[in-house]
């Protein structure tokens, strides 16, 4: 068990090092930032001064080492475009994305599992068929279209919910949260549904098929032959056995909720890191892109580590 954990942490570290190398090599291969930062009127002296200031005159290995040590301290340098430390910019934007991702992940998981169980148990029911057909639409419509449709219906026509932005935010230390005001909470509803809908349908369909598979197993038949109630059988015996594959997929999907929030953030003008990243790409703002890459990979790796630990927690057969 301990050796399993150590192995997994070492593997995670290796992944981060490789991603770090990719992020770092962007500095050398994606355009010359000096060109972008200094206008037409530059002199050779200006160029040399900025090059030295940004550390771009150092040899490759030293630059990589500096990058790594700085990254470990959360220091990703100065944004080429805004001229401010990247860590500061990210810290400003991250809470918006993380709150959006958390709410939509919770929405996707809870609704996905509940609907999945429902459609599996009432396999032949009318409502289950309706849900299954509706979920197909959910998967096939692209995210931006769902977002626009939701805005049209709930903001323009019904005027219930805001169509863009975070609403009022409260500052709690360095963290700006929308959870504490009613306008902040309202503003979360549409983007979270937009972002989580695809994951929800995916989780639902997965839970349903796993559940149907488990309900065919001998131990479910035996549980029924022992006279246990249907509720005990469905929720105590069957559900737990569906969790292992569901967790695998959910873990990967949670990562992509954060990583691919960009479209939703664009549609809803959400002031998160996704929007920041789009802007950074347009201006070849490499420090911001590198920091974003590192941030996302740390999240992916962490989530996968948690998934591995959850496996062991759920399935006793993996503990030996």
């Amino acid at each position: 068990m301990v050796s399993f954990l150590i192995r997994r942490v070492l593997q995670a570290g290796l992944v981060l090092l490789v991603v770090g190398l990719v992020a770092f090599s962007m500095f050398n291969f994606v355009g010359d930032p000096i060109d972008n930062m200094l206008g037409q009127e530059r002199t050779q002296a200006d160029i040399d001064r900025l090059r030295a200031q940004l550390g771009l005159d150092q040899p490759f290995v030293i630059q990589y080492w500096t990058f790594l040590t700085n990254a470990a301290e959360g220091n990703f340098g100065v944004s080429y475009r805004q001229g401010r430390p990247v860590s500061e910019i990210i810290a400003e934007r991250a809470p918006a994305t993380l709150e959006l991702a958390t709410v939509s992940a919770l929405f996707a998981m809870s609704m996905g599992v509940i609907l999945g169980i429902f459609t599996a148990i009432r396999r032949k029911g009318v409502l289950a068929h309706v849900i299954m057909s509706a979920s197909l639409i959910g998967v096939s419509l692209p995210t931006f279209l769902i977002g626009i449709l939701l805005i049209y219906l709930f903001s323009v026509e019904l005027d219930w919910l805001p169509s863009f932005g975070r609403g009022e935010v409260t500052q709690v230390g360095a963290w700006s949260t929308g959870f504490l005001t009613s306008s902040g909470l309202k503003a979360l509803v549409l983007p979270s549904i937009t972002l989580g809908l695809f994951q929800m349908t995916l989780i639902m369909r997965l839970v349903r098929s796993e559940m149907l598979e488990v309900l065919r197993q001998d131990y479910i038949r035996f549980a029924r032959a022992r006279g246990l109630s249907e509720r005990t059988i469905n929720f105590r015996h069957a559900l737990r056995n569906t969790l292992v594959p569901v967790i695998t997929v959910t873990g990967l999907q949670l990562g992509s909720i954060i990583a691919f929030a960009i479209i939703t953030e664009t549609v809803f003008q959400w002031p998160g890191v996704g929007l920041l990243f789009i802007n950074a790409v347009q201006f070849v703002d490499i420090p911001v892109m590198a920091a974003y890459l590192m941030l996302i990979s740390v999240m992916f790796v962490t989530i996968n580590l948690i998934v591995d630990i959850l496996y062991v927690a759920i399935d006793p057969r993996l503990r030996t």
Partner: protein
Amino acid sequence: MTLLNIENLTVEYPSRHGSFKAVSGANLALEPGEIHGLVGESGAGKSTVGAAILGLLEAPGHISSGEITLRSRAISGLDSAAMQSLRGKTISMIFQDPLTSLNPLIKVGEQLTETIITHLGVSQQQAHQRALDLLDRVGIPDPALRLNQFPHQFSGGMRQRVVIALALCSEPDVIIADEPTTALDVAVQAQILDLIKDLAAERQVGVILITHDMGVIADTTDRVTVMYQGQVVETGPTKTVMGQPQHPYTQSLIAAVPRPQVKLRRFSQVSYGGRDTRFAIEDLARNWPKATPSDGPLLSVRNLTKKFPIAKSLIPGRSKWLTAVDDISFDINSGDVFGIVGESGSGKSTVARLISGLYPLNGGTVHFDGALVSDPKDKAAQQNFRRDIQMIFQDPYSSLNPRMRVLDIIAEPIRHHTTRNSHDLTPRVHELLDQVGLGKSAAAKYPHEFSGGQRQRISIARALATQPRFLICDEPTSALDVSIQAQILNILKDLQDHLGLTLLFISHDLPVVRQMCDRVAVMKQGKLLELQDTQALFTTPKTAYTQELLGLMPRLDGLSTQGLDLR
């Protein structure tokens, strides 16, 4: 008073193409304290009877006529709530496979207490105490520790004991045991059957024992009911039915049981109901290449060793290894049938996989026809060897690729090993299919369209496709019914007689081994305990372990010997 009475039971499965009667007009009466055997081949409807009693028929199956009464009270046709209160409380069930009938993620203790609380409505503590008593009763040592363990920490036999404990939670009057020992080793099987006998005698529980194993029926049951294609063909006290079977089906079924005492020329086949058992061995022999017999043994194994990791550690010294095959050496002469027997986990299947190269060796050598074939670097030697050696696996359901047509399944080894163009392939496959008695039309079908016995014939055709000299048969019939088993074993005997094939025959079934093999090796925990000629092994075993194994064979003394092909 009769405990459980089944009268004129008919179970139907309606479908688009009319209704299929899984059971038609079956009668059965069970007395308290009686063990009543329900015997028949797969598809005879015996498990359906068990499921019908508990109201656990798979939809759309339903009882279309007849009545089931428990102590004169009708229980067929009760609503699902009333049925659920009966299940586990008055009537319990034990399933075939103890490895799959317990929930792998829930502790054994919790599974017991939840059942006890459901039926007896006692407190958690009382339930815990009762769970302890039950585990103790079914013979599980150290019950307090065992309650806190998960199913995977129990061996197969121990799990089946847990399943029995679960069935006993609420002092049931009737236990339906559906093939309770089929998945277990002989030694464990005997213990479980003893436990069931004790329970029936001591608590006056009525037991319906569903099985296809005549040995189990003869040793355990008081009365027996024989089913064939959904109908009861014969019923009566076990001694009478086994000793003087009246119905021709029962007679041929009993004749097909492999006997431990006498060696027969051929296995007697179940002839009732007109089955196609054709196997064109003469056709096959006509075009078979004549191997030039060489001096010395055909296959020679020296110091074979295989270890599997059971606990990996970052520090190499702390990893734990299981020695599955421990320094084994033997020779197999050309044209012989060499048997390996042993309990599950003894390493007999691993030996087969090591010889065929499916597992890399950890030590030792394999020589075939005088040439070293176990060197992984010598690709040419291995390639030639693989054409000469083919395998037939235990499970005919999982050893054929369900997404390939039979034509491609059989053609694959030919394509791999010869330069035959695809032009000649199809006639060659058709020829093989004809020879194993399936017919040309089988080539276009998929494996799921065949029965277990037919699939094993496909496996045999695949194994013969490269015209090998050596066949490894790993439990080739243990997943099959007694009648099908006889057909397949006769085919294997023919292959040896007419084609001069050498066979490595792995089995846990001693009567079958006695009929099939010339020499037999006994394995236990990866070691080879003894190696003797079959006759000598069965009459004068050298080791205590072999004696013990022989002692556990079903006696079958009372069985009718009518219709046997005695040598």
